[in-house]
């Protein structure tokens, strides 16, 4: 546990200030850096993500299992991002309605994580409860284009499973979300 008695430490991690967060997040390298912005390099994230994928690859035998594990990892990230953002942006009030939370994800969450709002939020035509958040250039798949190449036997593999997990946040609704990821 965190030691007490040091001036900088807090007795409980929950008491620590969480920082103002990002106001103007950008992944365009030529823009001005906001002084409150806390960032790491894209390649650091790319390396970390590749290790995540590699580690899981060893553990599983097939693609579906790998995607599920990535999604689980993304889910953990998403749950925390949701708490963090709700606290920061909306003064601890969480959206509980379907459309509310989808638009929250579409704008705020996407902006904080990836630097821009998602390209669009549409209602699917096939099912009553289907919605689509589309994104032309997913960060993870940008890594995809630059740093990751898929060996032939894993043709269907999709690193977007990680992002799908982020979206699969828990809400107060009873309906479970089913996230299907499609590359545009």
């Amino acid at each position, binding site marked *: *546990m*965190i*030691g007490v008695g*040091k001036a*900088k*430490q807090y007795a409980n*991690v929950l008491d*620590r200030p*969480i920082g103002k*967060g*990002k106001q103007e*997040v950008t*992944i365009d*390298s030529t823009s001005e*850096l906001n002084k409150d912005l*806390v*960032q*790491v*390099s*894209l*390649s*650091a*994230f790319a*390396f*970390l*993500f*590749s*290790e*995540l994928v*590699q*580690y*899981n690859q060893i*553990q599983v035998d097939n693609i579906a299992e790998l995607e599920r*594990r990535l999604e*689980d*990892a*993304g889910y*953990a*990230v998403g749950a*925390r*991002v949701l708490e*963090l953002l709700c606290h920061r942006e909306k003064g601890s009030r969480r959206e509980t309605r379907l459309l509310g939370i989808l638009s929250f994800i579409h704008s705020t969450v996407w902006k*904080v*994580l*990836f*630097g821009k709002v998602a390209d669009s939020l549409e209602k699917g035509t096939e099912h009553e409860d289907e919605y689509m958040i589309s994104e032309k250039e997913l*960060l993870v798949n940008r890594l995809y284009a630059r740093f990751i190449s898929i060996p032939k036997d894993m043709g269907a593999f999709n690193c977007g499973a990680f992002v799908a997990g982020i979206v699969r946040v828990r809400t107060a609704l009873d309906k479970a979300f089913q996230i299907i990821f499609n590359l545009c």
Partner: protein
Amino acid sequence: MAPAAPKSGDVLFASVDRVNAELFTLTYGAIVRQLITDLEDVEEVNKQLDQMGYNIGVRLVDEFLAKSSVSRCVDFRETADVIAKVGFKMFLGVTASVTNWDAEGTTCSLILEDNPLVDFVELPDTCQGLHYCNILSGVVRGALEMVSMKTEVTWLRDMLRGDDVFELQVKLLKQVPEEYPYKDDE
């Protein structure tokens, strides 16, 4: 003591593409969580993190040398300075400081006050032996091995265990001269 690099760490960090540090932190947390769930033994997790860091380090050093165009370091002191000022800044956005040189100049400590990996993290009682940031020690070890220095990297102080900074001790074991994979007389 500024390193003799043509580009400083800040300039480099501004020139690479960046992502939100919180995404990075949370992703790392997810990795550690997965490892703990799969392996369950804290020592195993430490070793696995170190290995992952090593894999990252061997590739990271290529990118580092390509982007930063630092000149060849004369001795280990300069190497440590470059890692702390330029390397850490370029990838993590934080600078480390170098202290505690021993008499021969082969061991030093890198002090990190600010570590993006550990935002929002608290170690539970069941994981007290865990070196949460062990991936960093692997990265440094891997990177240095690719430039022909065999090192041993250990954590001396860990903020998650109650210390006030992160202190990483880097000990140079030996310098391996470069070997060519082909015969010269061909």
